[in-house]
């Protein structure tokens, strides 16, 4: 329970003006993390799409909620996405440029749908 509260507080701090136009400088573009987990929510909104992911539990530790920022619906559509390309309940692996402060938010770089193997560029 304590771990969950801590994890959630990290995520709260991590979401940085995610719904408006902004620089991506808060993300460390020199780092790449790979997350595996289940999609809990997709918000297909301008100017940025948000994907929430609960990572798989690992060696006895509960999964962690991450919020990933993606480019705009228009830019995604032109990259081959639709608003249902990723849905709540989908299991995914996702490449992430994480927030510089180490909290659980990041910029999406690429998604693999684990059941179908389909890859989507962010």
């Amino acid at each position, binding site marked *: 329970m304590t771990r969950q509260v801590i994890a959630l507080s990290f995520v709260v701090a991590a979401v940085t003006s995610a*719904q*408006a136009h*902004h620089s991506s400088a808060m993300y460390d573009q020199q780092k790449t993390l790979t997350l595996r987990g289940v999609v809990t929510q997709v918000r297909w909104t301008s100017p940025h799409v948000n994907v929430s992911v609960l990572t798989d539990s690992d060696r006895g530790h509960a999964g962690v909620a991450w919020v990933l920022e993606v480019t*705009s619906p*228009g830019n995604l559509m032109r990259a081959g996405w639709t608003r249902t390309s990723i849905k709540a309940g989908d299991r995914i692996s996702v490449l992430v440029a994480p927030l510089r402060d180490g909290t659980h938010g990041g910029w999406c770089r690429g998604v693999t749908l684990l059941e179908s193997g389909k890859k989507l560029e962010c």
Partner: protein
Amino acid sequence: MHAKALLIAVVAALAVACGRSAGTAAPNAGAGPLPDWSGIWVPDVEDQFAQIDTNPLPWTPEVAAEVKRLTAAEAAGHPKGLFANCLPEAMPAWMLVSHNALEFLFTPGRVTMLGESDGNRLRRIYTDGRPHPADPDPSFHGHSIGHWEGQTLVVDTIGVLPQTYIAVSEAVGVPNNGGLHVVERMHLAGADVLLDELAITAPKVLTTTWTTTRRFTRQKGPNADILEGVCLQGSFAEQTDSRGDAVFVAVPHTDEGNPVPPPAP
């Protein structure tokens, strides 16, 4: 006699028509066939960033110090959110730093620019020969008049709110502070490349007129349609209320104004 009466009527009608056209300029006066600017136009963002170093702005010393501070803050991972409040990117920042596509509509006497991602991206450029108002109401995109020089659209814009940014990125820019004047020459530079050559005069923050060219690439096809975008939509969740009505509900936010993600199940 009958033919003479007809001739008089025709001459009278022509005189009336001429009088009208003298009073209000003809739509797109002087223009030949207009160019094909159909499709959507995607900004060259890499070129936007490259010009930060290759074509620096002639900032006043005081503004240059602030730009340096903002640049350092962004480099350190603490970018200022110039547009995080969802107000329009506005003139001239929309043309300078947007990452989103736009489209043009040609109608008699007017060119309209519509931008993706925010419903508030809209420029009306009057090409019917009218002058600027003597005292235009300040607005985010200002008052724009244009004319065609061959296949080039020349646009003159004044009346922009002093709060709108002259920006080099989404995190580095300063308010124009008043007196902004923008002259643009928009034209094709190839089948699918559009250039916007801007000359920006902002006497409160620039020591001289700054010129820059922004590049846009055309896309066409069903996946290239402009999508509706409402910047604040992301601040609301789509839910069903106790009456069964579909409603928008404000997303919980942190003290910093950031939305809170759903808790882990």
